[in-house]
């Protein structure tokens, strides 16, 4: 186990370096000049050159990359080209909001997904099953941004029950779990929860239906076991697959959603990326993509180590 653990951790180093290289290169391959984010188009060429020097954009790309990596290792992702603020602080402040939204959406999506999937699986072929399956298919098919705008029109504009944008009456930095703030979370979280809800529903429905058809379930019932106890056995069999799917979905949600965060002006990594793309703010783009990519690398590492712990065959493989 220690050797496997060490090997897996060591793999992270080249992966991280490769991720950082791709983040840097891809952003620089995209059209647009980072100076466009810093100086107004009226600026004469000597001013552009002066600002270029100040931001280090006049250096050769390999040198820029080297400096960026060295600083990134020390936790410094540079300064935003658009506003001059520290990228690290910007990204982590946005990441905190995205995590909040992702966990809220997961809570809604996974809870509904488990309930709907179990009901549909137990009542396979019934009207309830068709209804739930319809909701699940709708959930994975409906575009996020469309649903978001629809919810805003209904609950914000027409009914005036919930706010349409922002992360609270003050700002996300004041966030607390009071109603004044929570009401800002509801619409974006519901919008974001629809896809995981659909995916989890369909997975669990299929698993429950499959397990109910197994002979051991029939045997349990034949032995006179109460239906509640049979249900417990079914759940135990469904759980590993359901957890794997939910883990994957949680990973997607943690990556942030550009569309949902933009529609609701939710100050997370999705909105940060969206604005950075339109402003040609390369340092923010690089920093955000790097942090999110490393987030996935770390999640994968944790999953790999957890799997190895649960199933020793993986270590031997």
């Amino acid at each position, binding site marked *: 186990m220690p050797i496997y653990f060490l090997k897996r951790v060591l793999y992270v180093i080249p992966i991280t370096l490769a991720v950082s290289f791709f983040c840097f290169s891809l952003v620089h391959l995209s059209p647009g000049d980072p100076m466009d984010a810093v100086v107004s*188009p009226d600026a004469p060429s000597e001013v552009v050159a002066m600002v270029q020097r100040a931001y280090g954009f006049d250096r050769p790309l390999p040198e820029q990359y080297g400096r960026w990596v060295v600083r990134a290792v020390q936790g410094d992702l540079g300064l935003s080209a658009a506003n001059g603020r520290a990228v690290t602080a910007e990204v982590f402040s946005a990441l905190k909001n995205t995590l909040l939204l992702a966990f809220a959406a997961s809570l809604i999506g996974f809870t509904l997904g488990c309930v709907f999937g179990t009901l549909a699986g137990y009542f396979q072929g019934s009207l309830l099953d068709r209804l739930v399956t319809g909701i699940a298919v709708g959930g994975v098919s409906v575009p996020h941004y469309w649903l978001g705008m629809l919810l805003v029109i209904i609950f914000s504009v027409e009914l005036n029950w919930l706010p349409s944008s922002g992360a609270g009456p*003050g700002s996300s*930095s004041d966030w607390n779990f009071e109603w004044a703030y929570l009401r800002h979370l509801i619409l974006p979280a519901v919008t974001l929860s629809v896809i995981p809800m659909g995916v989890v529903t369909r997975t669990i429905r299929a698993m429950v239906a499959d397990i109910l058809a197994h002979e051991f379930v029939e045997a349990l019932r034949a032995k006179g076991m109460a239906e509640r106890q049979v249900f417990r056995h079914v759940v135990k069999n469904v759980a590993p697959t359901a957890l794997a799917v939910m883990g994957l979905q949680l990973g997607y949600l943690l990556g942030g959603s550009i569309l949902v965060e*933009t529609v609701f002006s939710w100050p997370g990594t999705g909105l940060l990326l969206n604005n950075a793309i339109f402003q040609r703010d390369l340092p923010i783009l690089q920093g955000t993509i790097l942090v999110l990519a490393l987030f996935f690398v770390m999640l994968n590492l944790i999953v790999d180590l957890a799997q190895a712990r649960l199933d020793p065959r993986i270590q031997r493989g």
Partner: protein
Amino acid sequence: MVYNKSAQTWRWAAPAALSIGLAVLASSPAVQAEQTLRIAMTASDIPLTTGQPDSGFEGYRFVGYTIYDALINWDMSSADDISGLTPGLAESWEIDEDDQQVWYFHLREGVTFHDGSDWNADAAIWNLDKVYDEDSPQFDARQAGNVRGRIPSMDGYDKIDDYTISFTTSEPDAWFPYQLTFLLFSSPAQWEALDGDWDEFARQPSGTGPFRLTRLVPRERAVLEPFADYWDADRVPQVDRLELLPMPESSSRTSALLSGQVDWIESPAADAIARMESQGMVITSNPYPHTWPYQFSMLEGSPWRDINVRKAANLAVDREGLESLLGGMMVPAVGTVTPDHPWFGEPEFEISYDPDEARRLLAESGYGPDNPVEIKVLISTSGSGQMQPLAMNEYIQQTFTEVGIELEFEVLDWESLFPNWRRGADHETSLGAHATNITFGWLDPFAAFYRFMHSSMAPPNGFNWGYMDDPEYDRLLDEAKVTFDQDAQDALLAEFHARMVDDAAWLWVAHDVGPRAMNPRVQGFVQAQNWFQDLTPVYIEE
């Protein structure tokens, strides 16, 4: 059996739970403060608050002229005339009698910054060093980058006495006072108190303007409150609090207004205006110095080198149809400036919708529906002041087809199109286009004409994207630039503009009217004919 029972329970439990939930939501009070004006901007972030804002003119509008003053301010008190200049931190100014390149500015006495320190010649020079002297400790590359291009004539500056400074321009320039409206003054004392940290200064700025910033949450919110000791008694803020929220998505802004989250939104989407009005919102608009044109390439091979094609294009656009497409939110353009402006002049070529004459002119040059002129134009999907570029360009494309002009679009995002402006029609990023569709403001003669039409402004020096090179244009502009008598200068500019229209030098399509949507409780707003607006008289009706 057990499961059927559960299913029955679900039938009544779900609606009941939903009703309870909705009742709880409905009972929650809206979070609003009295006398707080909340504005949704189109910017995606709070513009730079250190003095020289970024985010274009929206930055100046909301965190520039609110927190700071210039030596010369814009007079935004009237909705009836195009805004003129008015004394700001300088009470008066004059040009040296013997040297037209030297200006003297007499500074206003008794003015203090928000931190209580004094405004004087030392503070003025310190601010000039902030953007011009790379060796000064307070030099800030970001602020320099934001402002230096807007003051092309600046060559030097000096302190004369405690309340007088002088400027030297690189050449005689009668338009220099307009340029100084972009130079805003930050407090040296506050910068020193914050250990010379401009990032910290951005969070705790200190200017001399009518509002002071009390809270800044990057990307989310800026809160401004009235500055009690503001020097101009006519511009005392009427609200207790001004909140600025960046909201680049127009649908988000519309929803925020309709749901009561904000009181005022910038640039409402044209297709949402009717709905907003039907829900009691107020739409304000007023023409301002803005033009939506096609700027032509005059390079070898460009179809626009033929005056018949240029005139035909101007006669082929149905501007009234376009106006109705935009819900009335435009004024048809028949020149760079509006016909009532002193610079319009008396052109002989009358621009109107006349497809027959357009066809005749094209036929004269050998073109027609069977042999159309093929033209490629750079357009954007959106952008500051671009109005609705896709819908408008498609409309023009359709009306052009009817006379024998075939338009092909190279659609770029705004952030790619804008920098191309200074690179020119022959640059690789122009993709071989024959025209570019970028809107602009014509607040002063340099911004209106000189930077586009003078041959010295060809890339990379200015925005003469199409390499216009006409000695007569150069002569008139050069002469106007050194004519310090306003009437004589206006006459020269009118002569220049009339010649430009007679040459059909550009395709002129529309002037924007700066629509804004507001809650009816917002009162006191006077929409000046300007890119900037005065927020001090605005109040919220109880």
